[in-house]
């Protein structure tokens, strides 16, 4: 990661997702003095995944704060700072430990602007690595984005590639409202992508169509995008043309892009690793089913984790959706059509 710390503006470089996060943090701290970073181990250690590596050395302990070990505190401090002219970017070390942050996130961050009729606001970002697949211990593989997405007044953003991580994190930090930014750690050190470090943000509230197709719409986000693209390749070989949509902003949902696609393809498969029921997939499926009622050639399918706890890592592959599961779901769409 040493290279990352020496990057100068507009330099182009090949980065993995983790480095892209680090790059965006460097960029924005350099260009906006009000941005501060806080969390457990984010300072001297540069984060347990090294996402905040080099920040403390560069911007000092006043802007890069190792906090005591308390997630409610991290969220609450961020609310306090955000209302006073700072833009805190806080890290929750793993999404499995985010629950104590919920009261501050839901009761305050999400409501401060609404409650004060715009007098106060909470431009804060809560970053957290999320999801399974890295053989981590218990509580280190959760993907509970649905819990956050239900709450009004927040944005939930999940990148699926280095470039989107860079552009979306910049957008999240600049957004005047609270954003929960979930980083799929399974692809933290996945494929590299060329990134131009020019501070250009990507739009929030927008899906990204990664691949166009005519027979079925595959909708996913985060690490599952990789499996979904792989499935699309496999389907192509079988003569099925799949459109792949990366939702990216989970809250609020850009349904128009998804609906437009399904209107064209007539089939829809949603892929996520969170437990199946009451998850983000349900909302998308409900809306697609409603809005594409006359266009759907087959019922919307969901390929998801199971309604049980993420098993410890020896069995996590039994839980996580894979590309074969996606292909099977698509085939079901054709059988039932």
């Amino acid at each position, binding site marked *: 990661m040493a290279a990352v710390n020496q990057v100068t503006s507009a330099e182009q470089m090949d980065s993995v997702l983790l480095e892209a996060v680090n790059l965006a943090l460097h960029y924005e701290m350099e260009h906006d003095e009000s941005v*501060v970073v806080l969390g457990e181990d984010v300072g001297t250690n540069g984060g347990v995944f090294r996402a905040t590596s080099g920040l403390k050395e560069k911007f000092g302990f*006043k*802007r890069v*704060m190792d*906090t*005591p070990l*308390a997630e*409610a*505190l991290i*969220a*609450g*401090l*961020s*609310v*306090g*700072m*955000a*209302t*006073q*002219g*700072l833009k*805190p970017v806080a890290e929750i070390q793993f999404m499995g430990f985010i629950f*104590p942050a919920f*009261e*501050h996130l839901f*009761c*305050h961050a999400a409501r*401060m*602007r*609404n*409650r*004060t*009729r*715009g*007098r*106060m*606001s909470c431009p804060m970002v809560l970053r957290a690595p999320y999801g399974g697949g890295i053989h981590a211990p218990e509580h280190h593989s959760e993907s509970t984005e649905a819990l956050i997405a239900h709450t*009004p*007044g927040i*944005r939930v953003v999940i990148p699926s590639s280095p470039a989107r991580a860079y552009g979306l994190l910049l957008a999240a930090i600049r*957004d*005047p*409202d609270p954003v929960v930014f979930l980083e799929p750690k399974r692809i933290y050190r996945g494929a590299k992508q060329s990134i131009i470090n020019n501070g250009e943000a990507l739009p*929030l*509230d927008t899906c990204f169509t990664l691949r166009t197709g005519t027979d079925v719409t595959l909708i996913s986000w985060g690490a599952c995008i990789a499996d979904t693209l792989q499935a699309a390749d496999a389907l192509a070989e079988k003569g099925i043309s799949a459109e792949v949509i990366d939702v990216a902003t989970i809250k*609020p*949902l*850009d*349904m*128009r892009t998804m609906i437009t696609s399904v209107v064209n393809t007539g089939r829809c498969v949603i892929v996520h690793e969170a437990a199946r029921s009451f998850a983000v997939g349900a909302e998308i499926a409900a809306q697609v089913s409603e809005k594409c009622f006359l266009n759907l050639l087959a019922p919307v399918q969901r390929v998801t984790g199971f309604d049980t706890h993420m098993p410890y890592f020896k069995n996590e592959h039994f839980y996580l959706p894979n590309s074969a599961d996606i292909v099977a779901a698509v085939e079901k769409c054709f059988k039932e059509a």
Partner: protein
Amino acid sequence: MKAVNQAKVTAQGHSPLMEFSLQKIQFLDEDGNWVSERPEFATDEWLVQAYQHMVLNRVFDQKAIALQRTGQMGTYPSSLGQEAFGIAIGMGLQKDDVFVPYYRDHGAHLLRGHKLSDLLLYWGGDERGSAHGPKQDFPICVPIATQITHAAGAAAALKIQNKNQLAVVTIGDGGTSKGDFFESLNVAGAWQLPLVVLVNNNQYAISVPRDIQCGAPTLAQKAIGAGIYGVQVDGNDVLAVYQAMLEARQRADEHKGATLIEAITYRLGDHTTADDASRYRSNDEVKQAWQKEPIKRLQNALFNLGLWDGEKEKQWQNQCAQHVDEVVAEYLTLEKDTAESMFDHLYQDWPEVMNEQLDLLADKLTRMNH
């Protein structure tokens, strides 16, 4: 009160490690006599002002309860008996301090320049009640103890921005049991934050008495574990609360960190208008507490000093009543908020992808207007 456990033990292997001491601040006793020398800040003018504010606070409180009882307002938490606490804070705050209130700080609100009608709006179920006030001050906080962490965050922001001000936060005795209280004191100690935490220890958290909240004899001693300074004050003595704030500011100015102030008060009224305190405490207890209430004792002191008399009292009471009547009129005549306001200020940049929500609301309104 429970016995203090933290006494010396003489047993094998033990040696002394450290000692801590806790103090109390009081100037006026319950009859308005000076138990300590009159402090410098307490000029004649200061004393009269403090008294007048406290009376206005009480008059407002009575009116608010009356509005609730007559169906013109919602559930309201009275500050009866805790006027010294709120007023001392309001007087102790500087303009650019960040004030982070809980929900029973009507006295302090009054002095922060809030329109009192805004308070009525808030408790009347209208978000516009939190729309005004000093831009850095927080709105009323309902989820217990969460405000403490916001205040710590605000204090950290002041420190980061090199502003020489305080974040001042209030909380009830019940609130001191919640994790946020402790986490915030703890970070204030670790980061040496310019934070002042004032506990309105009014002896009850709804029905739960103080000794069920905590086995320690004082709440001030909760400062010790966080490595910050703690002190207990007579919360019915407006001078004591103010003195503690002065000292806290000095401590922060000297970069000596945060202060926890436990103010001993008594909630003379019900928890809120939705509560009936007679279910869980005796009339006797309340009667005794009335002996110590803050307004009478300061009035006595003023009488003794020749600064106040019956005529002034009558005039001031009238003025307060008149002012509060105006406030009520303002509250009652404000035009209704729109239904659409629920989407105003939800996000600064309205997500176009949410437009369906507006359509759904429009449909609903059409149906309602039929």
